[in-house]
């Protein structure tokens, strides 16, 4: 199966306020055989066009005019839990990246990534595989560490030792292949561990949302 055939059915939406960048990404994706079904320059446009465009993957810049990338991620994942969001950020603002991934993004890439890295990331995200940079893995490790020290709910998912180990290796810049070799696991198992990590991170988000709703008394009547 060629790359073009694999990508032929993948519908992508590109959200970025930089026209040059948006065009470049759109062109690269089109050349690689993806179908760019919508573009948007800000959060408002993105939310307005998302329901009709029904993309499989949203390539989303975090720093866009309001509502920002984090809010857009949360909202479109709420509308369609099967959508895959790949967030891009020029500045790599730590808090925003973590917030976007917690809100439901499947992958994160720094904007200076090459064309090949971007296409590879879109391909993997489309398949449902998380795309972690070492920096993001470090943030996620820190987040789980922080949560484990201030547990709000004993039912909240924590990482298993193996998941922590894998995530640490990702944070140290090792590829899945290298991790698989070093831990004597299959590539797929490593991927599953990373996927579980992301799922637990986002599950926490749902737990938090529920708690927030209860605290605000939304369940009272």
């Amino acid at each position, binding site marked *: 199966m060629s790359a073009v055939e694999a990508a032929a059915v993948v519908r992508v939406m590109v959200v970025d306020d*930089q026209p*040059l*960048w948006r065009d*470049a990404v759109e062109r690269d994706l089109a050349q690689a055989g993806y179908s760019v079904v919508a573009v948007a320059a800000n959060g408002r446009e993105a939310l307005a066009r998302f329901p009709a465009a029904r993309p499989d993957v949203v390539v989303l810049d975090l*720093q866009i005019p309001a509502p920002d990338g984090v809010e857009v991620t949360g909202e479109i994942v709420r509308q369609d839990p099967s959508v895959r969001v790949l967030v891009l950020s*020029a*500045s*790599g*603002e*730590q*808090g925003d990246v*973590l917030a976007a991934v917690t809100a439901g993004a499947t992958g994160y890439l*720094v*904007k*200076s990534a*090459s*064309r090949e890295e971007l296409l590879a990331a879109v391909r993997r995200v489309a398949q449902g595989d998380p795309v972690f*940079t*070492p*920096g993001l*893995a*470090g*943030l996620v*490790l*820190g*987040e789980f*560490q*922080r949560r484990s*020290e201030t547990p709000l709910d004993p039912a909240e998912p924590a990482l298993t030792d193996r998941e922590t180990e894998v995530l*640490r290796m990702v*944070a*140290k*810049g*090792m590829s899945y292949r*290298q991790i698989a*070799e*070093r831990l004597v696991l299959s590539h797929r198992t490593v991927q599953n561990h990373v996927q579980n990590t992301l799922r637990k991170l986002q599950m926490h988000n749902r737990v938090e949302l529920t708690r927030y709703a209860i605290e605000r008394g939304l369940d009272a009547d």
Partner: protein
Amino acid sequence: MSPWSSPAATAVDDRLFRAVAVLRVVLLGNTVAMSVVRAHGFERPIAGAACLVVMALWTGFATWAYAAPRRRTPALLVADVGLSLALLLATPWVKGDDVSMSLPGYWVIAALVAWGIAYRTTGGLVAGVLLASADLARQDVDGSDYGNAFLLVIGGVMVGYMCGSLQRMATERDEAERAAAIAAERSRLARAVHDGVLQVLALVQRRGRELGGDLADLGRLAGEQERQLRGLIRAEDAADAALPREYVDLVAELARLERSACVTVSAPAFPVELPAAVSDELVAATRACLDNVRRHVGEDASAWVLLQAFADRVELSVRDDGPGIPTGRLDEAVAQGRLGVSESIRGRIADLGGTATLVTGSFGTEWEFVVPRVAAPLGSAS
């Protein structure tokens, strides 16, 4: 801006004058009631009634006049206290000599408080002295009269002083809020500008790589600048967190190392606060590891730094993607007595009461430091 004329001080005045308006009505009610009860004692009841009507009219007028800042003129305040003085001094003529309660009664307090609000301590003192003098002048002085007069002066000064303090505090709070808002807006703008610059640098880098030739060099330069700026912003963002001077945020310190192109620093999203001495040693050890990578693996060799912070310790690792250290090479180095670099790294970490472990293999070479953590200052996310 003077603390007395700032919008915040005016807002305080508005509230206080609204309170005075209520006070004035209550005091008027009291005076009218007392006068009705003792109406038989008036020498000139018609003049007394006329005085009460004047007080009622003034109460209404003053409520309206004090409601707007631009109407709070010196003339209004002089008239306010002047009327009270006139009524005090007219008391013997209207009520006769042996009536101890003055004609306006406690109603004069409203003018006193108005002066305190408008002219603060000085105003309270001046109005207090004037009213006390008039009160003493209208009658033969006995102990309780003197006490009342004294209370008027002290009360005026106290009200004036407190109004002044309130206005100053409101002004200071306002200025602090404005400064915070300006700082937040400035940092928002800086973020937008930085983000725009980073976007363009990333784009140049990307297009340059695709087009090749001279443009590829240009793209590479843009890429270097982009990484440097990103590292700088990250370090600056972290520096915003106010910390005691002897503590520093290790995340921000390590982020500085990322400015060289091949180093990736992964760390938590929260600051990791450590005593400056500990942080300095850790950064120095990390730098030594990175120098080693450059020397042994290559100038462009990639390296990854990972920081994890726990309540009781920090774990810091530095990894490279090189071929690893061949078996026996370390022993050989020890035998030749030239294990300078790794011994100095171990030494630094041991001095901090921690451990340094070196792992090497086909996956590269990895240093791992575990350093115990002492109690961190307030607000530490640990």
